């Protein structure tokens, strides 16, 4: 367990290092967008844009939130791809821990670093909003109205839907990580059984074909498993539930798929997926 947590800390630190840089650039980019919306350049002179009636700091917060959507999606898709490098690296795999535990460490540190990045984004938005409150009264009125509207519509059902959506988002996040690892591990494992006389370029083409084959295979399995097995057992309509109540079913189905993929990946990394010295 001590090895697990030491490795986790190290992986987490490395994975978040670049995220800090990304956040910094996002803050700068949002400020640049806000600046050029608030001001305009005419004949090499900077003038306040007369059409803009919002302050520069609320503008900054707004652009930051808009950019956050793109940046968070970028990080969501890039981090699991980066974590595959650690799974392949001999330097990391030599740590005195089983390969299955190493894989878990790697996946968890990727997930926690992603959540950490979302928290950083949230904190930055809060700071920018706080600064907006101090400088612009219209922002205070806007948020007062928004809070009132939320309070009016808030009930226990909404709470459960929000909670269920968060759980589903977390499970979907793991699903992406597990699917990427599965394609990587399974395709490499299959390549290890390809005859040695096939040359480098052909191997790369074959690798792509194997990945497409695995996508097709996973899609078929998922169709059979979710539509025919799971739905026949726990279909929401069997319990008289409407569409909005199908969230628990989606959570259960995703959780089961996650567990199956996790089990497959641990098996593959323990028995087939080799570490290499190549970058």
């Amino acid at each position: 367990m001590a090895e697990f947590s030491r490795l986790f800390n190290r992986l987490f630190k490395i994975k978040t290092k670049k995220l800090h840089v990304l956040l910094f650039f996002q803050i700068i980019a949002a400020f640049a967008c806000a600046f050029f919306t608030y001001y305009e350049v005419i004949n090499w002179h900077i003038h306040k844009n007369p059409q803009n009636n919002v302050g520069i700091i609320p503008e900054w917060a707004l652009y930051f939130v808009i950019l956050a959507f793109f940046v968070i999606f970028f990080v969501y898709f890039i981090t699991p791809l980066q974590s595959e490098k650690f799974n392949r690296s001999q330097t990391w795999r030599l740590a005195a821990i089983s390969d299955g535990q190493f894989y878990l460490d790697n996946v968890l540190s990727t997930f926690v670093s992603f959540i950490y990045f979302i928290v950083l984004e949230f904190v930055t938005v809060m700071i920018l909003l706080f600064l907006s409150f101090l400088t612009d009264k219209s922002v205070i009125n806007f948020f007062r109205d928004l809070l009132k509207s939320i309070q009016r519509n808030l009930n226990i059902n909404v709470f459960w839907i929000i909670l269920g959506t968060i759980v589903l988002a977390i499970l979907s996040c793991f699903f992406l990580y597990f699917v990427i690892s599965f394609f990587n591990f399974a395709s490499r494992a299959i390549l290890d059984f390809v005859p040695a006389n096939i040359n480098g370029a052909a191997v790369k083409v074959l690798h792509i074909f194997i990945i497409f084959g695995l996508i097709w295979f996973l899609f078929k399995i998922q169709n059979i498993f979710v539509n025919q097995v799971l739905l026949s057992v726990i279909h929401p309509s069997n319990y008289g539930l409407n569409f909005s109540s199908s969230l628990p079913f989606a959570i259960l189905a995703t959780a089961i798929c996650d567990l199956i993929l996790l089990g497959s990946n641990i098996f593959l990394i323990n028995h087939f997926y080799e570490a290499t010295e190549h970058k």
Partner: protein
Amino acid sequence: MENLLEIRDLTYKKNLKTILDNINLNLQPGKIVALLGENGAGKTTLMRIISGMAKNYHGTVTISGENAIAERKAHLSFTDGLTGFANSTKIKEIVKFYKIIYQDFDQNQFEQLRQFMKLDSEMRLSEMSKGMREKLIIALAFSRKADLYLLDEPFSGIDAMARKKIINSIILWKPENSTILVSDHFVNEIASMLDEIVIIKDKTIYTHKSTEEIREHHKSVEDYYEGLYDAEEE
């Protein structure tokens, strides 16, 4: 004496090609053993199997009686090429990584070895020549207190003078009961420190002899090794 490393009936295939076939090998504690063989004989593969990096082999590998990969890795120190680090990584950052990841890493020992190898902690991997990188790899490997050291062609990029100095000092760096398994092409240069040699030929262990036994027959290790291939050519 109980064996430190035991390999039983090991066969490894990759891409439908047999790389190692029916390997049986026992190494005792406290020995320095050369793993010899031609290029592509399977020396690196054997080390990768011992360290748990290569998978899907048949047979058993135990180090200090431990078969599980996590336990095996805890008992060994393998000369890794450090390819898991970005080229901009400084030596001091790699040391930090080793300190965190390996419980048996001795920073004082590393400092001594670093000074011996004339390496600067502030140096980045991208600034290092092949030889300097190999010196760092050796220093990192011997800064761990392991039972088994796996040195995979550790001296190939190091200049002749430094190589000689390192080879002469290795015996001082290793703990008394630890075993070193070293693969190298410079048989004559490492011969003086060896207790045993293991030769891989035709995908299996062709011979496993003590250097004493070889010298008893009035032969140097190098002559003995080269003799195997000369006889084949004739």
